[in-house]
C-alpha cells in the first residue's frame, strides 16, 4: 500500500559554531578577533569548533500520521523541529513539506500584556498564521474552549498565569493546518485543562492531519502517536511503533545516571524551579544501585523564585513499561506546609526497603500549586533495585509486614 507524503527529511544536519549560541556578540570583540587572526575565515575552522546538533537525519512522514519524537534533553529534537518550522536553516540536507504548516513551539508567543484578551486572540492567531477572517469565524469557539469569556475585555497583564496559558493554548488549538508541529506544550496549565488539551489533540490527530509531536511526556506520546522516533545525540536511534520504541527508550535510554540537573536552556517555572533530582545512598552521594532491603533515597533540590502558596512536590516512580508503581507528595509528611518564601530547599524522600522488586525504576518529579503545574519532568533519573543477599519473594511488591499474634480468647483448640 502506498500513501500520500506529508514530510520528507533527507540527510538533514545542523551545525552550530561553539560559542555562537551566546546571547549576542560585541562588535569590538569581533573586530579584535578579525585583526588578531586575519586569515581565519569560515572555511578554515577546525571541526572541533563546531557542534552538530543533528546530523544525517532522514525520514518520511505520511499524511495523517501522528509522529512522536522522544529523546533526552540535547538530543536534537527541538533543533529538528525548529528547522522544519523554518525558524532556523539546516547546514546540510533538505526537507520537503507537503501542505500548510502550523507550528506550536510555545504557547502564548507574542501575547502583549497591554492588549485585552480579544485583541490578543487576533494578534496571536495572526502570528500563528491564521487570517483575520479565520479568527473571526473561530473566535467564539476559542473563547469557549478557554472558558474565560468574562475576561476578554481585560488587559492580559491582569490575567493569572493559568488564564493566560488557557487562552493561548485555545488559540493554538484552533489552528487549522494540514501539518502541525508541537513542542512540549502540554506541560502547562492545571490538570483538568491538560486533559482537555490532550483531548483536543486527539481530535486533531483523528481528523487526518499530520502531527509532529516532540515531548517528554511518554504517556502522551504513547496515547496519541501512531509512530515514534527516538533521537539520541542528534541521530535517529529508533523509529517505529510507539510502544516498542518507548519501551526500549526506557530500558536503555538511561545509563547509570543517578543525578539530574535542570537544563539551563529549558523553560522553567516562573515561581518554582526544580534544580536537581538524585538517587543517593546513606552518605548523600549519588548512587543508582539500591540493595533490595535498603530504603531508596531520592533527593529533590528546588528553588522558590517567588513566594508560593499551596505548593506540592510530587515524586512518581514508574517501571520500565511505564506503569506507575507509586506516587508520593511532600504533603504526606507535612500536611498543609505549602507556603514557601524565596529560597533554595532540599527534600529527601525515603521509600522504605524492602518494598520494590529488584529491577529498574524511573523517577518523575512535579511541582504544582492548586491551579498551576510549575514544573514537570518525566523520567529524570533511573535507579536499580538489586537483589543483594536476601532472598527475593514472589509478588509485585515485596514489603515485610507486621504480623501480630492475637490472644486466642474466643476460639479454643478443637477437641
Amino acid at each position, binding site marked *: 500500500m502506498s500513501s500520500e507524503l506529508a514530510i520528507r527529511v533527507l540527510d538533514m544536519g545542523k551545525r552550530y559554531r561553539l560559542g555562537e549560541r551566546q546571547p549576542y556578540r560585541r562588535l569590538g570583540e569581533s573586530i579584535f578577533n578579525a585583526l588578531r587572526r586575519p586569515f581565519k575565515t569560515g572555511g578554515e575552522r577546525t571541526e572541533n569548533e563546531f557542534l552538530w546538533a543533528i546530523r544525517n537525519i532522514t525520514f518520511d512522514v505520511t499524511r495523517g500520521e501522528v509522529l512522536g519524537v522522544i529523546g533526552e534533553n540535547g538530543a536534537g529534537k527541538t533543533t529538528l523541529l525548529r528547522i522544519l*518550522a523554518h525558524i532556523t536553516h539546516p547546514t546540510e540536507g533538505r526537507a520537503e513539506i507537503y501542505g500548510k504548516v502550523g507550528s506550536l513551539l510555545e504557547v502564548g508567543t507574542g501575547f502583549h500584556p497591554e492588549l485585552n484578551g480579544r485583541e490578543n486572540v487576533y494578534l496571536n492567531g495572526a502570528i500563528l498564521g491564521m487570517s483575520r477572517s479565520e479568527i473571526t469565524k473561530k473566535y467564539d469557539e476559542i473563547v469557549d474552549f478557554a472558558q474565560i469569556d468574562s475576561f476578554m475585555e481585560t488587559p492580559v497583564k491582569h490575567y493569572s498565569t493559568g488564564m493566560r496559558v488557557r487562552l493561548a493554548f485555545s488559540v493554538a488549538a484552533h489552528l487549522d493546518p494540514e501539518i502541525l508541529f508541537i513542542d512540549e506544550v502540554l506541560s502547562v496549565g492545571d490538570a483538568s485543562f491538560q486533559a482537555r488539551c490532550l483531548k483536543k489533540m486527539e481530535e486533531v490527530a483523528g481528523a487526518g492531519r499530520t502531527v509532529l509531536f516532540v515531548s517528554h511526556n511518554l504517556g502522551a506520546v504513547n496515547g496519541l502517536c501512531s509512530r515514534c522516533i527516538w533521537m539520541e545525540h542528534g541521530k535517529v536511534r529508533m523509529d517505529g511503533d510507539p510502544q516498542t520504541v518507548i519501551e526500549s527508550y526506557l530500558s536503555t535510554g538511561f545509563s547509570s545516571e543517578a543525578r539530574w540537573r535542570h537544563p539551563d536552556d529549558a523553560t522553567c517555572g516562573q515561581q518554582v524551579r526544580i534544580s536537581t533530582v538524585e538517587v543517593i545512598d546513606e552518605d548523600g552521594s549519588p548512587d543508582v544501585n539500591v540493595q533490595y532491603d535498603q530504603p531508596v533515597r531520592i533527593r529533590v533540590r528546588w528553588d522558590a523564585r517567588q513566594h508560593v502558596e499551596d505548593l506540592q512536590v510530587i515524586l512518581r516512580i514508574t517501571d520500565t513499561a511505564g506503569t506507575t508503581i507509586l506516587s508520593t507528595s511532600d504533603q504526606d509528611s507535612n500536611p498543609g506546609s505549602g507556603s514557601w518564601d524565596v529560597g533554595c530547599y532540599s527534600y529527601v524522600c525515603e521509600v522504605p526497603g524492602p518494598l520494590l522488586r529488584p529491577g529498574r525504576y524511573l523517577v518523575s518529579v512535579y511541582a504544582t500549586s492548586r491551579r498551576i503545574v510549575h514544573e514537570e519532568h518525566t523520567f529524570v533519573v533511573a535507579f536499580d533495585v538489586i537483589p543483594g543477599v536476601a532472598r527475593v519473594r514472589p509478588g509485585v511488591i515485596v514489603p515485610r509486614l507486621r504480623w501480630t499474634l492475637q490472644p486466642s480468647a474466643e476460639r479454643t483448640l478443637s477437641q
Partner: protein
Amino acid sequence: MSEAVAVREPEDVITPRRGWFDLGLKELWRTRELAYFFMWRDVKVRYKQTVIGAGWAVISPIVLMVVFTLVFGKLRGSGATTVPTPVWYFSALLPWSYFSGSLQAASSSIVSAQQVVQKIYFPRLILPLESVFPGIVDFIMSFLVLAVLMTVYHVPFTSRLAIIPVVLIFTGLTAFAAGLWLSATNALYRDIREATPFLIQILLFTSPILLAPRKIPPSFRPYYALNPIAGVIEMSRWAVTGVGKFPTGFVLPGIASLVVMIFTGLIYFRRIEDLIIDVV
C-alpha cells in the same frame, strides 16, 4: 511500512541556503496581514499608561522648534526668506521627528521581538518594515500643528502642500532602509543599540534642519545631498513655506542613494537573517 509517495509539489522546501537575490518579497506580500496586526498592536499600545497619551507625538517637534527658534534663530541667516522662524523650523521637524522615531523603532525591532522570532516563523522583514508605519499617526498630528502655526504666522497654504504625502513616503522609506541595516546588525551586535541615538543626533545636526542649505558650498552639495533626509527636509520646506525653487539638487541624489540603500539593505538583511536566529 507503506511506501510514501508525493502526489503534488512540495509547498515548501527547506534547504541550507537560498540565492543572493531571493529577497523574499513574495513571501512578505503573502503575510501582509501579520504586518498589519503588528502595526495595529504598536499603534494601540504606544501611548497606554501615559498621561498625555498621543500628545507626546507632537510635543517633541514642538519643543525642538521652540528651542531652535530661541537658541539658533539668530544663526539662521538673514535675507533670502521672509518665512517666520518657527514655521521654517517646524517644516523641517515634521519629517525629521517621523524619521527619527521610526528609525529608532526599526533598529530595535528584531531584538525586541526576539522571543517571537525564536519560536514562530514569519518573514522577519516584516519587523523593520512595520515599525515605520505607526509613526504616520504622529506625522499627521504634527502636520495639524504645523497647519495651526502657518495660520498663526499668516503663511499662505499653497497647492505645493499636495507633495506632503510624497514627503511622508520618502521619509518612511529612508527610515526603513536605514532600519534594515541597523536592525539586523543590532541582533548580532548590541553596540548598535548604543550607537543609534548617537547616529540620530549626528544626523539631526548635519541635516539641513538648523543649517540653511544656502550655506553649503555648491560643489559639495551633491555629496551632502546623498543623505536622503536632506532632500526630504528641503522638499517639506519648499512645500510649506511656499518660497524658492523645487530643491531638485537635493532630492535627486537622495533618491539615488535611497534606492541603493534599500536594495543593498534587503540583500544584507536576507544574508544575515539566518545568522540572527542562532544568535539573538
